[in-house]
């Protein structure tokens, strides 16, 4: 705990110091943040592996509950590992920033503060501490979003983010209020000891879903995320998308699995249904978007959806006392939290590298970067394949566990969940296939093909620390894919505290690295064996082909069925790649329309093709209430220009009304 405290202190001091600094010395925050992340990560890992907990109490905070409670248990330790891994990668990337150009006092002082706030949320052991650090995290990240406030788009993103964060925190205040009850026992220990009444519990669950869902990007509360995450500098985007959404997941897990007590099975339905919709819709947004960073942010929405589905399944299994199945679902959720933090941070850092090298984020202005940025291209490819849940990388391990838990859902006694299981399974499979399509599109358009702009044609590789940051994450994606079973073993203490059981037969497979969901007769996934097989098969292929075949290779112009066109504009673009998907899914999800305006014969104007997509969530849930609020405030605006007599009348009337309510109530 002292180490944690020291590291947190170092982050805050670095932030405070940096706030007074200008120019190149600002760069000091990144090494400090990296060291602090390593220290905290090691402490977290120690608690996670050895079990037990660390606790402390500071003499600040609410006096009625005895101060500011801090505690590090296996659950927060696990999320601590996730967060500090992301912070470390982002700090490494930050060390590679150009000291002369990239540093500003609007970003660097806030970076360590943001990292510290996220760690503090995990440590909080009472509602006050939790909400305070949660708000600190929101505000720090908001300030980072509006760091480049000169662009209208960023200001708009910051505004929306602030509104959504306020809504989320308000919901969380209600959630903790419900948990604490009228006695006001805001310490988590007190809350755990008293399970709330069923009706209150439902309200708490709803509030937690809104509060944490809005931070994590659960549909329909996701709208701010694709605007705000890309607006921040790229290494901060990596933190927000890869790591801060995990803090939201942590909040949900802490409230529903730890504080709320035993669940009813139908509590699982909202997270499962919303999660499944989020997963599919998030990717549909992603696959039609043309901005590299926004696509990544939408894909975060999808992954948060997957995690919520897994959490919902865990909740349902636990309510049915099927602890082994609950452990599988929970392991899927936690492992995906870890995996997503790795590949999403990697992809955002990669997007940052592309942005730095070309100055562009629009996919249609990129292309051919694999030639100009060979290392970034390799790392990004690993991230893209991992996030598409393709074996033998890490994304597939958690996806496999998730599918296994869906396959176990028909064993639950509730008909609703039985019949929901094929629908969920199909939606998850659709999400997986769409993810592959989305990232083939992103990679194929941005990194492959021929450059579509002069900037892309003259891109350059990024600095060494940035390559190390991306390379480290890419290595983790590979290792996590091969040895996912070992990570799952390490999760056992968290699983036991949350759902009462670890994976029943973990570690009993034919090889030490076999991942077994339920038992060996039912399903095994052994990534090292498969990887070994693929490696042997490709080596054999290479050797045999090398021996047997003609080895001559000639370079020539592209064939393209005999009509190669040197213009890069003849390539497929991001929009044209999405066209088949738009025809199939866009018409249903976004009522996509394609219009072709053809000038009459003889007219030399070019023909125009345009596509319109309608975002129903945005128009109904954001734009309409926004207009209503605006109209209402215009009406109420008149109240600001009354004479003093009228104000006195209004005050008197309010007093009378309140007094009469009070009399009726008593």
């Amino acid at each position, binding site marked *: 705990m002292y180490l944690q405290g020291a590291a947190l202190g170092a982050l805050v001091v670095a932030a405070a110091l940096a706030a007074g600094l200008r120019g190149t010395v600002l760069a000091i925050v990144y090494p400090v943040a990296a060291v602090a992340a390593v220290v905290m990560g090691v402490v977290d890992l120690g608690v996670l592996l050895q079990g037990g907990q660390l606790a402390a109490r500071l003499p600040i905070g609410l006096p009625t509950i005895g101060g500011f409670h801090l505690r590090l248990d296996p659950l927060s330790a696990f999320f601590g590992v996730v967060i500090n891994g992301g912070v470390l990668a982002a700090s490494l990337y930050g060390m590679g920033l150009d000291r002369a150009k990239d540093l500003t006092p609007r970003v660097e002082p806030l970076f360590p503060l943001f990292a510290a706030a996220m760690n503090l949320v995990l440590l909080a052991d009472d509602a006050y501490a939790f909400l305070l650090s949660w708000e600190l995290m929101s505000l720090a990240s908001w300030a980072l979003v509006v760091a480049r406030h000169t662009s209208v788009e960023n200001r708009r993103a910051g505004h929306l983010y602030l509104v959504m964060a306020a809504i989320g925190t308000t919901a969380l205040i209600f959630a903790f209020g419900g948990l604490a009850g009228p006695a006001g026992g805001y310490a988590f220990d007190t809350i755990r000891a008293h399970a709330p009444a069923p009706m209150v519990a439902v309200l708490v669950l709803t509030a937690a879903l809104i509060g944490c869902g809005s931070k994590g990007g659960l549909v329909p509360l996701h709208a701010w995320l694709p605007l705000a995450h890309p607006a921040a500098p790229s290494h901060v985007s990596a933190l927000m998308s890869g790591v801060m959404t995990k803090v939201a997941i942590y909040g949900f897990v802490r409230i529903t699995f730890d504080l709320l007590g035993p669940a009813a099975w139908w509590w699982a339905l909202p997270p499962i249904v919303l999660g499944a919709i989020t997963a599919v819709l998030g990717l549909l947004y992603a696959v039609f978007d043309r901005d590299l960073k926004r696509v990544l942010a939408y894909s975060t929405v999808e992954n948060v959806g997957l995690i919520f589905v897994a959490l919902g399944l865990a909740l349902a299994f636990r309510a049915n006392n099927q602890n082994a199945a609950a452990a599988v679902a929970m392991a899927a959720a936690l492992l995906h939290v870890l995996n997503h933090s790795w590949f999403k941070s990697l992809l955002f850092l990669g997007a940052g590298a592309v942005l730095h090298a070309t100055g562009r984020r629009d996919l249609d202005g990129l*292309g051919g970067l*694999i030639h100009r940025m060979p290392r970034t291209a390799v790392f990004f490819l690993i991230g893209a394949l991992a996030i598409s849940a393709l074996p033998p990388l890490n994304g597939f391990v958690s996806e496999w566990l998730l599918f296994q838990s869906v396959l176990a859902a028909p064993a639950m006694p509730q008909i609703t969940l039985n019949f929901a299981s094929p629908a969920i399974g199909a939606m998850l499979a659709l999400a997986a296939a769409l993810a*592959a399509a989305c990232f*083939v599109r992103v990679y194929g358009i941005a990194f492959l*093909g021929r450059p579509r702009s002069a900037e892309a044609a003259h891109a350059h590789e990024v600095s060494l620390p940035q390559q190390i940051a991306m390379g480290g994450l890419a290595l983790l994606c590979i290792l996590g894919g091969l040895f996912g079973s070992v990570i799952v073993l390490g999760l056992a203490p968290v699983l036991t505290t949350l759902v009462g059981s670890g994976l029943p037969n973990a570690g009993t497979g034919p090889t030490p690295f076999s991942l077994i969901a339920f038992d060996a007769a039912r399903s*095994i996934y052994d990534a090292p064996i498969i990887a070994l097989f693929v490696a042997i098969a490709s080596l054999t292929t290479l050797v045999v082909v090398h021996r047997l075949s*003609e080895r001559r290779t000639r370079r020539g112009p*592209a064939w393209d069925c005999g009509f190669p066109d040197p213009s890069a504009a003849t390539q497929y673009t991001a929009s044209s790649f999405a066209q088949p998907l738009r025809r*199939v899914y866009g018409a249903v999800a976004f009522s996509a329309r394609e219009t072709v305006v053809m000038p009459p014969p003889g007219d030399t104007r070019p023909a125009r093709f345009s596509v319109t997509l309608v975002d129903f969530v945005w128009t109904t849930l954001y734009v309409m209430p926004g207009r209503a609020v605006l109209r209402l405030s215009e009406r109420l605006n008149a109240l600001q220009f009354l004479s003093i007599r009228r104000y006195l009348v209004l005050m008197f009337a309010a007093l009378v009304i309140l007094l009469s309510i009070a009399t009726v109530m008593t």
Partner: protein
Amino acid sequence: MTGDFLIQLLAQGTQMFMVLLIAPLTVGVVRRVKAILMRRQGAPLLQGYRDLSKLLHKESVIADSASWLFRSAPSLIFALTWVAAALVPSFASGLMFNWAADVVALVALLGAARALLALAGMDVGTSFGGIGSSREMMIATLAEPAMMLIVLTLAIAAGTTRLPGVADFFIGQPIAVRVSLALSLIALIIVALAENARIPVDNPTTHLELTMVHEAMILEYSGRHLALIEAASYLKLVLYLSLLICLFAPFGMAPATASFGGWAIGLVAWVAKLLGGAALLGVWEVSIAKMRVFRLPDYLGVAFVFGFLAILLAFLSRGVGQ
């Protein structure tokens, strides 16, 4: 122990070798049957081997704008498909490494091969490559949900997603007429046709047709690279036929406890069923026309609906809520 291990290794090696050996013949049978039914002369049965050998002996021409990904993709795609094909129980169910991947992992391995192929299609930066890749990925998004429903039905029926387990279950079980399995069979056939780029989804014999998918992606390949990709697509056909055989017609397959005698019978039965399946595919392909690309959602929607019905029936037959 060591003797047992060697025999197991031998069996696994035999399967890896056999799928590779028989793949061009399987495609040859499809083409031959089609030729006979269309009253064409047609290519000889062994044309597949000749094609591969011809391609291997030609020099490879690579576009100027191609990257390392374009050159290394074919061997990776081939290896992934080969491993996947080796993991499906063919002549015996208890092979050495069949356990290493269940159906979910198997589908994902093929997904990895597909993603690599789609990326390779976009590498040169031509419009044909892009059209093929984007359509291939669109078809995958339609096929995978249906595939998931089939897997779910099997998991409910057999209680496992491991292919040897499912095969053992169906070998041991008297083949009762089960509506839910029949529906899954139809769904799997529809998905398999789509995954293998066969008619009515794609036409493997055309070039220069705007509806082509698979052929458009590999248009820039030549020589040994093309040979590997062609071989991978042959293997994929064998894989899906073996999968159908293993799940719905496992009779003759050697159970996990069998030894050489059982394996020999299993091998003969598997080859016979495989070539029979290829002949049926040939008959199917001459009796139906290729579909427009944007009618595919309807076509694969049928698989999805059948898969869904199969699960509902599986629930009903088992008693809901049990």
